[in-house]
């Protein structure tokens, strides 16, 4: 039995279904500087923000075929910042007019004992990585340019190696369900980053 697409589900339980609209692309290391300059010009005027995050992805295997996935993220360069727990639903495909990937999204700030809590609940860590890069904002749009580092020794975030010679560029908006004009704004912004970066809707299921 398939659940109806989340964009149609009404507000239930006092919370609004938030959707994440996403466009992704990449930029090679040697073109990073030009991209950063362009983004500094296009985005809201603020101090350039860098981040160093450690993300762990937890799976809960139930009786259903597909496991439940939760993402726990902590900041490695900002002490005292809360941990960030995130649930991302399946991307809603099928609407050719929608220019961005849309998926249900739940974001929660948690305290530091998040991993212990998840393990007690029965989650097991599937994979983890370190993300290091830059963060820009334009209105409600968030642009992240970061490099993914593979953690060689689980649990040890010092021994890492870069996954590829490129930076991942993500343009995302978290908005209440049903606001599809957001994807038009995102596409217009993505146009301004061409031909440096080609931001597009990438279906992860195609890459499995």
């Amino acid at each position, binding site marked *: 039995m398939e659940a109806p697409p989340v964009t149609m589900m009404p507000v239930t339980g006092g919370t609004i279904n938030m959707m994440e609209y996403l466009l992704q692309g990449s930029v090679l290391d040697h073109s990073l500087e030009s991209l950063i300059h362009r983004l500094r010009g296009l985005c809201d005027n603020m101090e350039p923000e860098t981040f160093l995050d450690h993300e762990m992805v937890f799976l809960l295997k139930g009786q259903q075929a597909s496991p439940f996935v939760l993402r726990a993220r902590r900041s490695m360069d900002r002490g005292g910042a809360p941990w960030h727990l995130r649930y991302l639903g399946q991307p809603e495909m099928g609407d050719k007019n929608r220019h961005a990937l849309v998926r249900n999204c739940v974001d929660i700030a948690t305290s530091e004992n998040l991993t212990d809590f998840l393990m007690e609940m029965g989650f097991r860590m*599937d994979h983890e990585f370190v993300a290091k890069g830059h963060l820009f904002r334009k209105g409600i749009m968030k642009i992240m340019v970061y490099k993914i580092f*593979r953690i060689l020794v*689980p649990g040890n975030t010092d021994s890492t190696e870069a996954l590829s010679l490129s930076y*991942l560029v993500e343009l995302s908006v978290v908005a209440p369900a049903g606001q599809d004009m957001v994807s038009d704004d995102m596409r217009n912004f993505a146009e301004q980053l061409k031909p440096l970066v080609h931001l597009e809707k990438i279906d992860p299921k195609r890459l499995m």
Partner: protein
Amino acid sequence: MRHSHTYLFLLVQREEKQLEASLDALLSQVADLKNSLGSFIYKLENEYDRLTWPSVLDSFALLSGQLNTLNKVLKHEKTPLFRNQVIIPLVLSPDRDEDLMRQTEGRVPVFSHEVVPDHLRTKPDPEVEEQEKQLTTDAARIGADAAQKQIQSLNKMCSNLLEKISKEERESESGGLRPNKQTFNPADTNALVAAVAFGKGLSNWRPSGSSGPGQPGQPGTGPILAGASGLQQVQMAGAPSQQQPLLSGVQMAQAGQTGKMPSGIKTNIKSASMHPYQR
């Protein structure tokens, strides 16, 4: 009887309304067409030395678009068949008619015997009629099959030409970029998106299918061996200890199933890790 009368009356009324509405639509379309034709002619006559081919193409495209919409209006299901309507001049007079002047924007001052044959004409010019007759007899002469074949070959040639043009356009664009450095690599994009979406290339204990370019999988396994005891430490902290021996037994069984890497390394990892697959 009265019901049928009222029904007929309503029908006639509806048709009249439709006629009026479609006439209005036609009028506006034709007015637009006239305006764009006028501006094109003006452009050709006055700016011919500065005129560029794209600008001429633009005007042509505009005209063709307007003709298209005109056709659509005519073909619209709500427009009655104009063929069934007949215009008969009721009064012809050689005097100036101010109303007519106003309606035609000063082009037709008099509704007289000279004006009517031109404006109310329904047959095309004799030369045009000749040409049309010629074309229809030619077309009929060829026969349906040959005509179909000609249509298909025309379509094929058009699509070939279109393909060539678009390929040329694409190649010239990328050819221009190739001496400049490429700023992104689509394969990298896919690898990174896969890594973030479901951990492709990130998990240390799964044989990773495709790591990013320039990152061979083998060096990753070295530190794993050394850190196997480290693994044990980390996992033990998170779970009750009695589960450990049970899981390791299960992992050994799984190692037999999915063996791709050398078994020595596999057993080390599997015995130490508490893999999410078995709960």
